[in-house]
């Protein structure tokens, strides 16, 4: 492999990793406060991509479609919590998990019924689909934009978590919900914030995914969602930095293995899960995870 192919694969890996990272943050934050693997999270990403597509197709400018899509995903996340998860706060965790899977099926089939299962081409404005030629390296401009935006969003997320009182409340909630209430804090409002933040990031990840692989369908959230979930576990579920790290590791592996060993190309979707199994075997808490019972952000 020559240098330019290598560089090409590196930027591709960073880009794919960023998308997994954006989606993985939502898994890890919800797990942090509710001890729930929100299996509907991948579908919230689909809702984001779909709403952006629908709005854009209806003639709304792309940028405004993105804003509408983010808001729609946030609303979906918040409603999921309010309608499906909140009544189960004191129920066994397995009930929550089953409910999450149910919500996932519901969203997939709702969009299937409303809009059909045929993949649709996702049209993005020219400045996002341009292809740059740097010497012999060919780079779609998204490959640069995606990691930059991801870095920015990660910075904002960490700033909120570490520097604002709402972030502190989110971190406290991960440790002790009853005591958070004793501070006069409405715990349900803080949980709502977590769903809103995670869903917004997932929507952005979904839109990036739709731009890079320019098609969407109601089931697109399943595989990407599962890989992002694997990324969250690999990085250490409950840790935001870990989720981002896990996302990059999985994105890289997927791209690099295929590039070095094209004969394994057919198995590229399996690598995330091989990684997941290895991590669970040898370091069950993940890379950044410390103690599953006291996960930190």
């Amino acid at each position: 492999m020559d240098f330019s192919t290598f560089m090409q694969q590196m930027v591709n890996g960073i880009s794919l990793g960023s998308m997994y990272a954006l989606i993985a943050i939502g898994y890890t934050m919800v797990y942090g406060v509710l001890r729930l693997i929100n299996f509907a999270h991948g579908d919230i990403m689909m809702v984001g991509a779909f709403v952006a597509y629908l709005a854009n197709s209806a003639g709304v400018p792309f940028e405004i479609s993105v804003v509408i899509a983010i808001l729609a995903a946030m609303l979906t996340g918040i409603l999921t919590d309010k309608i499906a998860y909140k009544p189960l706060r004191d129920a066994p965790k397995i009930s929550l998990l089953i409910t999450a899977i149910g919500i996932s099926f519901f969203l997939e089939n709702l969009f299937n019924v409303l809009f059909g299962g045929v993949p649709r081409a996702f049209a993005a404005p020219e400045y996002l689909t341009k292809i740059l030629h740097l010497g012999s390296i060919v780079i779609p401009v998204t490959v640069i934009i995606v990691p930059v935006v991801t870095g920015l969003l990660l910075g904002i997320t960490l700033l909120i978590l570490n520097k604002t009182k709402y972030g502190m409340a989110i971190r406290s909630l991960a440790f002790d919900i009853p005591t958070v209430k004793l501070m006069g804090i409405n715990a349900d409002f803080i949980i709502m914030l977590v769903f809103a933040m995670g869903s917004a990031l997932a929507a952005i990840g979904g839109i990036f995914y739709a731009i890079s692989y320019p098609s969407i369908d109601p089931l697109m959230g399943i595989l990407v969602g599962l890989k992002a979930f694997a990324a969250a576990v690999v990085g250490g579920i409950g840790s935001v930095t870990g989720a981002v790290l896990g996302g990059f590791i999985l994105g890289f592996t997927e791209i690099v293995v295929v590039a070095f060993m094209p004969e394994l190309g057919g198995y590229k979707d399996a690598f995330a899960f091989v990684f997941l199994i290895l991590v669970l075997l040898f370091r069950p808490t993940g890379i950044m995870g410390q103690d599953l019972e006291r996960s930190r952000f």
Partner: protein
Amino acid sequence: MLKVENLEVYYGVIAAVRGISFEVKEGEIISLIGSNGAGKTSTLQALLNSVKRKGKVIFGGFDTKNHKTHTLVQKGLSLVPEGRRVFINLTVEENLRMGAFNNDENYEHLKDEMYKLFPRIKEKRYQLAGTMSGGEQQMLAIARALMGEPKLLMLDEPSLGLAPKIVGEVFETIIKLKEEGITILLVEQNAFAALNISDYAYVLENGNIAMSGKAKEMVGNDEIRRKYLGG
């Protein structure tokens, strides 16, 4: 300030509190004493509606029925829970910030006050709260509750698991808080220490009030001495 009538708490069919009535007057220290399982902690949780309860609870002329825990805390009914429960994954200063979650404007001022009141907390303000000793965590838990400027401060077993010298410091702090005009409802197994600083006390037994009276008189009461004060 706080008037409780026929308070009942049930966990399924098991009664933890069986219809108790008591009163906390402004500016006083009231204690609920009794052995393990007498219903002391359940009573405090019921006052904040953290557990299902029956009966009437009037706090500052306000019926607390159907109000959520966090709303009651915002109204000035604050609890330092059993086992301190500081946020061990947050720094000491962040713990104080959490206590002042709804008190943004007074946060800086109150923080300085707390550091004056508990100099040892100030030394460790950037450390994770989980790295502090039990006594320091207890001080932090009290300071954290004070950050919300409560009208009535409820303390659940503040001496639990602390060395005798530290227990003394905690109780001195409670007296100081009373002098600053904070009303206190104290729950303790360490009945002797509690009675010594209280104005009035109730003895809980199997979810009922077995006895009540002025704390000074109870210290001298033979039956109390025999049953709860170990002598």
